[in-house]
């Protein structure tokens, strides 16, 4: 590493320490660019794939208002994917490259979207739990040092608030609704609780990237810190509406004021991350099909534009 590089790196890290935003065109270490492209594109892919588990329920949403809200929510997810692909594009990767990586199974996306949505109550539980977990992560990322990513996150956070609230509104209602609704809500919690906790990533001890990401202002809290905050918020809320957390080891620790959870099944987590979750193949196949079937459309409009130019 020559002096010029060392100097540039020091200035870059000083800018971040001063709270300045790094913008497209500014000098950045290759590793910073690489990590951001990885994180942002994964985040974008998660939003896009994430449209499918809930989108499947639009056609059977049981009230006009719920149908309207769900269309808007899934539309938001597409919008968030759009903002994130844009942020990644400012770092030099193209959308064609990112889609190619996703559709060929090379790119990762949040494993939470490889679980099936089995009942209507899953829609509410995803809104309250999964989006709740996402919001915690996104709120932190809004302070990220890279301008386009930070701005995308601020916008996403503002729009995501309604996602969690409408989900909570549903579950609170069903928890005190008909017996079938109550059972549906409890069943949804039983299936989504642990996957939501796993959204915060491996335990800190097993997260090699974290220290550098923190030094470069890409992360400001650790996985375990965020996960504990989330648990402490959500447990009392579910208890308040009479739903049980599916964790026999769950215990409140009066000394610290924290809710202690039982052991996370990481074996299962890694299986799902590696692509063996129940819905991996199906969801990617759906995206591939949409992409393939859309080819003639994209080509037609490009041809029209070329002739009009």
């Amino acid at each position: 590493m020559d002096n010029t590089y060392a100097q540039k790196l020091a200035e870059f890290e000083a800018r971040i320490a001063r709270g300045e935003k790094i913008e497209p065109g500014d000098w950045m270490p290759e590793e910073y660019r690489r990590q951001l492209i990885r994180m942002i594109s994964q985040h974008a892919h998660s939003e896009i794939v994430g449209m499918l588990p809930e989108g499947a329920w639009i056609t059977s949403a049981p009230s006009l208002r719920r149908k309207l809200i769900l269309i808007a929510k899934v539309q938001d997810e597409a919008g968030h994917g759009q903002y994130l692909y844009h942020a990644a594009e400012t770092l030099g990767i193209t959308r064609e490259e990112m889609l190619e990586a996703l559709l060929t199974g090379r790119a990762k996306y949040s494993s939470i979207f490889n679980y099936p949505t089995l009942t209507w109550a899953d829609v509410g539980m995803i809104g309250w739990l999964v989006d709740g977990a996402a919001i915690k992560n996104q709120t932190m990322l809004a302070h990220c040092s890279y301008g386009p990513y930070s701005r995308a996150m601020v916008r996403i956070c503002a729009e995501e608030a309604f996602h969690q609230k409408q989900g909570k509104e549903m579950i609170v209602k069903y928890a005190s609704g008909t017996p079938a609704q109550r059972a549906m809500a409890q069943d949804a919690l039983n299936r989504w609780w642990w996957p939501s906790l796993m959204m915060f990533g491996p335990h800190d001890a097993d997260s090699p990237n974290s220290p550098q990401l923190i030094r470069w202002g890409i992360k400001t809290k650790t996985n375990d810190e965020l996960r504990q905050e989330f648990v402490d918020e959500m447990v009392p809320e579910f208890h308040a509406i009479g739903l049980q957390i599916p964790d026999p080891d769950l215990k409140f620790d009066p000394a610290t004021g924290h809710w202690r959870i039982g052991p996370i099944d990481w074996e299962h987590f890694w299986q799902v991350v590696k692509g063996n979750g129940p819905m991996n193949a199906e969801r990617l196949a759906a995206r591939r099909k949409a992409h393939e079937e859309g080819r003639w459309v994209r080509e037609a409009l490009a041809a029209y534009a070329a002739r009009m130019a």
Partner: protein
Amino acid sequence: MTEIERALAEKLLALADDELILAHRNSEWTGHAPILEEDIALANIAQDELGHAMLYYELHCALAGGTPDRLAFFREAADFRNVQLVELPKGDWAFTMLRQYLFDAYELALLAQLTHSAHRPLAEVAAKVRNEELYHYKHTGAWVRRLGLGTEESHCRMQTALNELWPYTAQLFTPGADEEVLVKAGITPPPAEVREAWAAKVLPWLEAANLSIPLAPTVTLRRAEHTPHLTRLLAEMQSVARSDPAAEW
């Protein structure tokens, strides 16, 4: 209800059912559109239409009782009053864009007059709906032109779609059993006038997109007649609501 109110309630139900079924068909594209931006755009159209359906249902219920949700989720296919055009499966992108375009053009032609309806609540709703429809029409008009003129494949798909859809457009302008009552009361415009305004828009636009208008027999069906597609659509749409009829969602 008076004779006029009965006729108006039936008309409002038809307007609402058209919007609901079309919104449902459009929402089937969510997550599957040809490009991300268009997924977002079509979801906007679907939301607008669902919103319109809810407005028309409210107007209907103010006259005839009931609630919008009970109408949407607990009627059988035979009791729906939408045109068959909107219940047809979504097809490919050309089919969806062209169907939407033909329907948007019909709505604009109708709404231009409905905003002057003698029934004040309907005139107000029509004004609101018309604003959103103006935007839909620009969007789908742009698509029809580009797909018609784009490539040989897109042109071919558009022509196939037009050949299939055109015969169904006649039903948009078929007078209902009590249409005369409403026309005489200045509540709705004469269907023939709406058709003329509609044709004045779509014929030149389709021609400019290099599409040939098929010579098709005009089958005039009453809105109470449906294809098997509606039964299948409702089976899915109503499944969760009907699984627990006492529940509030």
